């Protein structure tokens, strides 16, 4: 295989650029959706929540997946110091994903759904994603000479790719009547696959963020260390068996719930480690805070702590009974997707785009302003969801329940806070994302112009 050069980098950049555009697109639908909470019935006939929610969810899911792939593919080459096995396959995979994402968005506009969480598109659109993922697995494995003595992030990338493929396939078992014809069985298998699937894309992202951390601190020992692998195996154990908390109230087999409850308690070890390393984390943060990428890693650290704390509490069935079906679950999802996944991915994208013809540092001032707006508004956003969740929790446990619509009206102050903070969150993210997109477009334009002049002079 050829040594690593910038050849083919533009294909990988396409993954990241598409992902950044999808993030902006998803944010717009997120704002629209939150407006529909404040003004129920808004755009009821043209763009009801039935369309707005999948547009928001799918765009954000594809932001995470495509940016996760782009980051992993970039760092994979930097790690092996060789180019990807086949750029043609990578381009084919990109074209498949792009066409599928566009088709999915069109299907939502037309009101054609498959009606499952995360994947609300018609099921036939899952086929190209599945085959595209097979190409990725093939390309990934062929890009390595061997898997001996690899750092923890390589293990995480491989785990992420393999488990996504498995759980994605599993999430479509409902197409078979054997799995579909009982609601309890269907929901059990559905949430088994979803719980592990989220864990698999987290593996891709966390792997890349560990690579980035090594790069910033210029210390590779950590990713080969015993503790890194202990944490990896704890994560893998949870990915495989800690999904039952989604269905504690479902009348399914008790052993599923008991296994999940027990496994989820191993996350206390992760919380304990964060607390134990707190001082060290803070001093590293102080040392590297001037590095743009590191700022986002540090913010993600803070959100890992909050989200993990909430996750452990929600994994206790007695507490889950109160939080399940309330906005506290949404708070947890938002903390994980924005506070952890998006912050880690932005840290990585800043690093990846730093070798463009314009350095990201040129836009440091606006990105830092965006960073603070995002962090403060995300905290308000998160707290407003927790507040709404607590209120709904009290409603669903009260003996004399008022009607659902009255309860929702009572939640409107939280929804207003949630909309305003969500709006600023989107503004802040735009301030970070826009310079990144601009850099790539300006560089591409410069490259095209210089090729044109070379062509003319010849």
């Amino acid at each position, binding site marked *: 295989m050829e040594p690593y050069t910038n050849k083919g980098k533009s294909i990988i950049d396409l993954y990241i650029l598409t992902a950044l555009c999808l993030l902006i697109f998803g944010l717009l639908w997120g704002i629209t959706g939150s407006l529909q909470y404040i003004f129920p019935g808004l755009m009821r006939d043209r763009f009801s929540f039935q369309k707005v929610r999948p547009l928001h969810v799918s765009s954000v899911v594809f932001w995470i997946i495509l940016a996760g792939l782009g980051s992993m593919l970039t760092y994979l080459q930097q790690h092996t110091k060789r180019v990807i096995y086949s750029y043609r396959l990578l381009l084919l995979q990109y074209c498949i994903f792009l066409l599928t994402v566009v088709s999915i968005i069109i299907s939502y506009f037309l009101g054609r759904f498959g*009606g499952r969480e995360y994947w609300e598109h018609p099921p036939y659109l899952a086929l190209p994603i599945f085959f595209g993922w097979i190409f990725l697995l093939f390309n990934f494995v062929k890009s390595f000479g061997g898997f001996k003595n690899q750092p923890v992030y390589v293990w995480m990338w491989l785990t992420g790719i393999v488990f996504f493929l498995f759980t994605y396939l599993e999430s479509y078992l409902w197409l078979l009547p054997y799995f579909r014809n009982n609601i309890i069985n269907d*929901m059990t298998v559905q949430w088994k696959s979803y719980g592990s699937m989220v864990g698999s894309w987290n593996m891709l992202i966390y792997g890349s963020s560990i690579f980035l951390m090594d790069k910033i601190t210029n210390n590779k020992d950590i990713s080969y260390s015993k503790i890194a692998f202990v944490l990896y195996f704890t994560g893998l154990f949870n990915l495989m068996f800690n999904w039952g908390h989604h269905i504690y109230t479902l009348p399914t087999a008790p052993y599923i719930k008991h296994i999940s409850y027990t496994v989820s308690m191993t996350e206390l070890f992760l919380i304990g480690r964060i607390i134990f390393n707190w001082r060290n984390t803070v001093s590293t943060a102080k040392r590297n805070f001037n590095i743009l990428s590191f700022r986002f890693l540090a913010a993600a650290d803070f959100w890992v702590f909050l989200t993990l704390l909430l996750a452990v509490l929600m994994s206790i069935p007695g507490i889950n009974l109160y939080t399940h079906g309330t906005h506290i679950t949404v708070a947890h999802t938002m903390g994980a997707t924005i506070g952890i996944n998006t912050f880690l991915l932005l840290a990585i994208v800043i690093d990846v785009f730093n070798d463009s013809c314009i350095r990201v540092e040129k836009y440091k001032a606006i990105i830092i302003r965006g960073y603070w707006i995002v962090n403060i508004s995300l905290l308000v956003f998160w707290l407003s969801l927790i507040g709404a969740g607590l209120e709904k929790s009290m409603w669903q446990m009260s003996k004399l329940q008022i009607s659902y619509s009255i309860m929702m009206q009572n939640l409107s102050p939280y929804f207003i806070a949630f909309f305003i903070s969500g709006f600023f969150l989107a503004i802040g993210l735009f301030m970070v994302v826009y310079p990144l997109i601009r850099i790539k477009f300006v560089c591409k334009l410069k490259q095209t112009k210089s090729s044109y002049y070379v062509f003319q002079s010849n």
Partner: protein
Amino acid sequence: MFSDRNKYVLAMFLVGGFIIYTFQLYNSLPVKQIAVSQAADDGKILWQKKNCISCHQIYGLGGYLGPDLTNVYSKKGAVYISAILRGGTNIMPNMDLTDSEIEELLAYLKDVDQSGKADPRTFTINTNGTIHQ
């Protein structure tokens, strides 16, 4: 230190456990297979095609704009549900459903209702943190 061999053994052990757990679950699904009516199965497909889950919940899972519908059939009855499905509400759009589609959705909601109770007030919390109904 974790040698490569130890890592592979541990990974194989976990993957093996996961595969056994998965196929054990598939082979003995939590609820004994009960043949549902064709209308209920069609209703489920329609429920998904209309993306009802974006606003409503079943067993607390789904969207939060509308109420949980797990036990709506026994609480509100077929006539009430039909009226909502036929005309929509201030928030829910009119889906232009035919009479047979309404019947299918009713059959599905009846089937869901008979599967159990989603009301969290029907659970008791045990001292070890687990719950039972």
